[in-house]
């Protein structure tokens, strides 16, 4: 029984970790006023780069380079949406397609197969958890402090709520939004890197499998706050691992029933609780002086 509980908690946390990274990422971007539906594509790029770079430079090198690749994807999204004031949804769609396309066609064209195995074995573990699990939890606390207790956080939020007044106060809306979107790219890529290099030891085509969109749901469900996102990700992650546990007790709940949970909850939250949970005021709106 205790074994089962330990396995349940362990798998719940492991399933939540990539979601935590990506939904924190979404929070930074949207707090600065830029909708980021490209999380999925950014995670895929992170997952792929982590394996390729990890095979060349080891675990830490792989993760750092994956984060940089994520920043680059964020930069693309920022150039389109902040500098050119392009539609943020369309740009997000493009980011997703680029992420899916690049990570599907490069491994096939270069390595001749769509799966790439990681050479980084012997990943350090504390109670079966790999390093990025702890990094994710640390980032939640750190992000809360950054967003709500620092001048930078205040500025980031102000350009997402009321860019005009922020601008008159001398805050560069462009610079803050670039920063927010690029941080979101870094975090989403770390989520992808966790999936590939630490959790499965290989990159497989489309391995993110919609987690970018679940993270988006978690960000909304968590009310655009780091702790809220953490709670939502844990809920979604544990619900998933519940299904496996029920199976060991001989209860065969179809996995699709539990997979529905994040999506239905998010719709309910948006439909019912709109007063309490609302996006940043200027979220999705390009800023023009």
């Amino acid at each position: 029984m205790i074994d089962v509980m330990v396995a349940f908690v362990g798998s719940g946390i492991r399933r939540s970790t990539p979601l935590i990274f990506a939904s924190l990422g979404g929070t930074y971007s949207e707090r600065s006023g830029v909708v980021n539906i490209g999380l999925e594509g950014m995670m895929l790029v992170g997952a792929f780069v982590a394996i390729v770079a990890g095979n060349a430079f080891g675990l830490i090198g792989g993760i750092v380079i994956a984060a940089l690749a994520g920043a680059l994807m964020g930069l693309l999204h920022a150039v389109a949406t902040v500098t050119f004031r392009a539609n943020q949804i369309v740009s997000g769609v493009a980011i997703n397609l680029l992420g899916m396309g690049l990570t599907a066609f490069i491994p096939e064209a270069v390595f001749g197969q769509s799966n790439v195995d990681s050479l980084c074995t012997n990943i350090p573990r504390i109670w079966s958890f790999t390093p990025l699990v702890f990094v994710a939890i640390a980032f939640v606390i750190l992000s809360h402090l950054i967003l709500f207790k620092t001048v930078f956080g205040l500025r980031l939020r102000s350009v997402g709520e009321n860019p005009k007044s922020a601008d008159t106060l001398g805050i560069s809306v462009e610079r803050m939004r670039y920063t927010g979107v690029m941080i979101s790219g870094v975090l989403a890529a770390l989520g992808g890197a966790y999936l590939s290099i630490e959790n499965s030891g290989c990159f497989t085509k489309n391995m993110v499998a919609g987690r970018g969109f679940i993270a988006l749901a978690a960000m909304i469900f968590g009310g655009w706050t780091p702790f809220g996102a953490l709670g939502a990700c844990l809920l979604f992650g544990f619900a998933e691992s519940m299904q496996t546990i029920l199976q060991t007790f001989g209860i065969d709940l179809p996995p699709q029933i539990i997979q529905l949970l994040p999506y239905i909850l998010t719709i309910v939250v948006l439909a019912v609780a709109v007063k309490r949970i609302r996006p940043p005021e200027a979220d999705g709106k390009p800023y023009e002086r």
Partner: protein
Amino acid sequence: MKEINKKSLLSPIISIIVAFSIGGIFIFLLGKNPFQVYASMFSGAFAGEGWGFTLFSMTSLIITGLSVALAFHCGLFNIGANGQLMVGGMLAAYIALSFSGLPPFLLFPIIILSALGAGAFWGFIPGILKAKRASSEVVITIMMNYIAICTVSYLLTYPLKASPGYIAQSEIISRSLWLPRYNGIIGADPTILLALLLAVAVYILLWRTKTGYNIRAVGFNPKASNYAGINVSKTIILAMTLGGAIAGFAYFNYIFAYQHRIVSDVIVGATAGFDGITVALLGKNHPLGVILAALLLAVLYSGGLAVQFELGIPNSFYLFLEGIMIFSFVIFDKVVGGKNE
């Protein structure tokens, strides 16, 4: 056809050129000749029976593109074509399997209506939430996509699964409901005519009826439309519902003219909804533009499929080209200063 002018054609054309150029650089870096690859792609899309598959892809692309374009005109983003086509296809296939005793001339209209109805319902929910609760239709349609994927996957894994075999798919539908194919070629079926008919219908709706005028007015300026006496929330709900109804047909050719059953994993994780956005954007939200953009994308897809083994350029290259196309489109459209998003 007054809505297409020379200036508005500029950004789609530039973005196509940019995508092919950047794609060409990638092909070159892989040690292949980009001109040869592109040439083989285009000829592969039409060679032999390849044109059939191009037509097949084009059919679904026109339908999802129209669905997205219609919502665009009302200032709405329908990222839900993927879910709408799944539920449309699912209900249509379910009706086809359950009532196979009925004569086809009676059953087929019911099947068409059920695809339409299921898709419409899947569009209605984000529509009403947008209109009444100001919920982002982008987020809701994304969620609705996954609800559709999970539901269809559940149905095809458990209650409606074909009995032998491991694949999550339905039984084969009755032969009397199979749509005819010209010379048996995949894609050469009547659904392309349905798609073209829908394009004409969308054109007439948007530019020749009062409802269409209202949709465009709300898309242009909801506040002013409200003052002008247009019921904005009703128009928003209608545009999303109609968009959903159109998308409900996008799986039709696969089920009734190709595989003759519904398969769970075909669209899952695929990009039908995103493709619809690409088609609507490149086509400038005009039905004629949608048809042309769908043709281009279909050529890339089926041509890519035809040459992937021969040339060693995987078919997923097409997604990459598509990504760059949209990306350069949103940027150049701002630079050129087009009115439409």
